[in-house]
């Protein structure tokens, strides 16, 4: 049978510089889907998500969910759903669960996902992100669809450590790493 190995988007992620100013890890094997409410089905969708995932569907730029499945608000009637539990064909089953309420499109391979933390992280992100990521303006749970070094990214703050998850276009992973390395090397980029 046809055997198609998978290559992760950030396979080239590497440590650079001395120190652990930023600690990075690629989140691999995550199922990702864009979920878009069907016309007039917003409330029903929220109810279904509450019932089936016990998640309050966020109505703004916030994320909510469990460790396994998170719903991130990325636009009006639009969410990025990430699933970290390795369920085979998760996106297909999500589409069935939300059938008639939302259109579900697989994006698992469209982005690479990084988990970033470390004492210098906010200073490093400030070299790319043009929005205020401080605790007051962007508390844990906040989501932003923005750009870094002319590349579209979705980022969300997991905790105030701070820890961020960042999704960047797969085809631009090399350019994204160039930005990350150049920006974080002085404080040290450590890959776990």
């Amino acid at each position, binding site marked *: 049978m046809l055997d198609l190995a998978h290559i992760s988007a950030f396979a080239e992620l590497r440590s650079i*510089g001395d120190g652990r100013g930023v600690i990075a890890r690629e989140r691999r094997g995550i199922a990702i889907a*864009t979920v878009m409410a069907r016309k007039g089905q917003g409330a029903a969708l929220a109810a279904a998500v509450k019932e089936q995932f016990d998640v309050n569907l966020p109505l703004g730029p916030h994320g909510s969910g469990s460790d396994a499945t998170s719903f991130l608000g990325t636009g009006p009637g639009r969410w990025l759903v990430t699933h970290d539990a390795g369920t085979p064909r998760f996106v297909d089953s999500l589409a069935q669960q939300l059938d008639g309420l939302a259109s579900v499109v697989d994006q698992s391979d469209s982005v690479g996902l990084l988990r970033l933390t470390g004492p210098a992280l906010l200073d490093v992100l400030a070299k790319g992100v043009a929005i205020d990521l401080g605790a007051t303006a962007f508390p844990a749970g906040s989501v932003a669809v923005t750009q870094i070094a002319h590349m579209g990214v979705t980022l969300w703050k997991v905790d105030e450590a701070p820890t961020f998850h960042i999704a960047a276009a797969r085809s631009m992973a090399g*350019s994204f790493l160039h930005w990350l390395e150049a920006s974080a090397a002085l404080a040290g980029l450590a890959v776990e």
Partner: protein
Amino acid sequence: MSTSYRLASGGLIDRSRPVSFTFDGKTYGGYAGDTLASALLANDMMLVGRSFKYHRPRGIFSAGPEEPNALVTLRSGARAEPNTKATTVELFDGLDASSQNCWPSPHFDLRAVHQLAGPLLNAGFYYKTFMWPAAFWEKFYEPAIRASAGLGALSALDDPDTYEKAHAFCDLLVIGAGPAGLAAALSAGRAGARVILAEEDFVLGGRLLSDTTQIDDVSAASWAAVAEAELAMMPHVRILKRTAVFGAYDGEYGAIERVSDHLPVPPPFMPRQRLWKIVAKQCVLAAGAQERPLVFPGNDRPGIMLASALRTYANRFGVSPGQRIAIFTTSDDGWRSASDLQKAGAEIAVVIDARAEVAPDVRKLAGNALQFLGAHVSDTSGYRRLTNITITDSAGQTRSVAVDTLGVSGGWSPSIGIATHLGGKGNWSEEKSAFLCSDMPPGMQIAGAAAAQWTLADALEHGALAGAKAASHVGLGLQTQKPIVASDEASGNNPVWLFKGSRRKAFVDLQNDVTATDVALAAQEGFRSVEQLKRYTTLGMATDQGKTSNVNGLAILAGEIKKTIAETGATRARPPHVPVAIGAFAGLHTARHFKPTRLTASHAASAAANTTFVEAGQWMRAQWFNAPGETDWLQSVTREVKAVRSGVGICDVSTLGKIALCGSDVGTFLDRVYINTFSTLPVGKVRYGVMLREDGFVMDDGTTARLSTDHYVMTTTTVNAGKVMQHLEYCHQVLWPELDVQMVSVTEQWAQYAVAGPKSRDLLRALLGDAFDVSNEAFPYLACGEFHVGNIPLRLFRVSFSGELAYEIAAPAGHGESLFNALMQAGKAFDVTPYGTEALSVMRIEKGHVAGSELNGQTVARDLGLGRMMSVKKDYIGRTMAAREALIDPDQPTLVGLRPVDRSQRLRNGALLFARGVTPAPDTNAGFITSTAFSPGHNHWIGLGLLARGPERHGEIIRAWDPVRSGDYELEVIDPVFIDAEGARLRA
């Protein structure tokens, strides 16, 4: 033997840390905490350069960023930085600087002969002097002027350093960390505000570092250090030293941080400079003020300096710039300088004040120095250093006094430039003798000397108040502040703009060599507005932007045109307030990182196969694959085309835009955006579509597949992917929000490969086995399907751009490289050939498919031979406008095929088309060649073109005229489909 001008004690330099540096190749010593200027002065190096136009000897004039004279080239080789102000350069061990605009040295400069031509070099001289003979201007005069003009020279080598950009957000941005700025930052910081305190200098304190005043019973400099320590402890306060705010923009400020300019070479990974974009809710501009020089004959000799700068060198750097000093002032502040210099141990020979009356307690400041009131300096002498001044006293008597240094003090000009960047303008205050700004950008306050609050006590009080106000504006409570107790000093001033005396030049702008006579000449010749004066005389247009000269210049102009200073007004300040390296604006985005690069899943595998890539927007695409022995691109491309036409080839087409469209109304939606009908498209089928702009011209084309009842996937051209997505979002969100349509880009999700050629089905059958039936019966032309191999979803489309039996197979991008390799592996048995965009292009031209060269924004569907696709049964975007008279005119150039009458003739894109026998001219032009290719099948060049009445002219011989490339040949007009016109191969 040079003298040391370093005082035995005092100053804020660290005498335990000696530093060695070189200037013009000679080694000198200084201390940590020195600037290059203070260290040069300590080593008796007053003369450091030559003036711009006359090459007159010039010395260090100021102690800060307003410096007009002491411009040096810092470092050498690729890191050489010309026009650096020695007064702002932080001394470091190993610093290497050199003088500029002089040859061979500042002490002996051959170009000083320019001074002999002085009478000819007045304002606007180049408009007047070099009029004849006219031909000489371009050949001789201009090159000669250019050769002798300019200051330092660029290295012309690549910049070895890196730059970066950063964003910051705060409640309050405080610009300047002098007394007002520190007080503002303290009161806002104590109230809990997020504060950014930006200071251009490498030490906080501003004038506090230069004065001997007391605050809260400690020295001003100590108070600044305590304030800094308190601010540093506040977690919500960020102190940016070596950071100059250079501009106010809408809601944000630009600042440049000199991160490693004070180090010999930036350490690994450290940028040289960092460009900050600061978003601040409130701003306190506490940029201080600059002392104004006085304009009098012979006022530019080395040794003549701002009086406050002399004070700075003594108090902050422990340097007395001269041995015998005179002070010439119109202000009380000049007397303070005299006092401080005396206290530091310098000899003050004489104080000359233009005012007839000076308060006794002010006069006391001069100690036992000779005093002249109502007097002025009317002449000076000394070539490389001041030796004598001539004083004209109140009775008109003159006398000469031997001094080597003259401090001049004409009052202070508030630094309000940044406050006027958004359109505000300074207003002249007679009371303060200064331009003040009252219409600041939203959220900005001005405090301290920048608001003409001249005394230390005033500056501290107003600074603290401004900080507290800013904190309350962002919703923090007004906190009672412990008052800061400071000494109050005299600050009277009565400016005199021009002193008469000898016939020597009286300079207004030292850097651009503009004299009082030049200003008068400009006024006389009708340049009576300050903006005209500036441009005609170049006053204030040098690298210092006239920080010490603008006010004097316009005041002298006001006198000439008999107007008040308020009526005359000031020139407009524009960002940047200080020069900013272009590299800082580029940041990381240089060379190949100029823009992000997008790589397809097969990139690594293709690169390993010796592939030449081409940029397509941000994407890198394989252009052709270089096989062993091939030396020419055409060789490679021809091989690839032949291989596809006779066997099977693989091409990465992942870069095409892919948009998922979902919902129950997608059919309706597509009917409205495409010219042809899609609501009738069955599940499992693909259709080619063309969409128009609202003005009726073709926007893009591509195929849309219906994967299931409510799920379609549209493809766009690579370059238009973003534009089409934006267009569709607009159509849905603004025009037809009632439709149940959801859309999202899936370009990144899928790696997609064209598998083309008569053996493509065999290859796919070998690859997929039982996983999917690719027979013609089960999967005919324009079919599409989704299936899984294991848990991996795959998509197959039977579409063809090449005109051959062809498929496109897609896998999630993470599996894309494996799929490419699997296709190559399965294709071995069929001698599979990877092909690039050039072969793709050759084959689409042979097939008569239009692409970017034809979809050029100036063609309608009819021009492209697609007129019959335009549905008459429905409305769609662009339908009405496409029916405009000119767009349906048969004379409109229309798609044709072209082949050379002489089959050996090469065709080139862009050649113009004419009827045979017609003289080429704009009004006889009938079209042009849009695309050309060497057709391996026909063994000659072919082309597509847009030709007036094209379809009627098949068989006609026309003329191609290509004057740019000396081409003039005959073409036969034929059908644009060069191969398989009936489409048998597609459906095989």
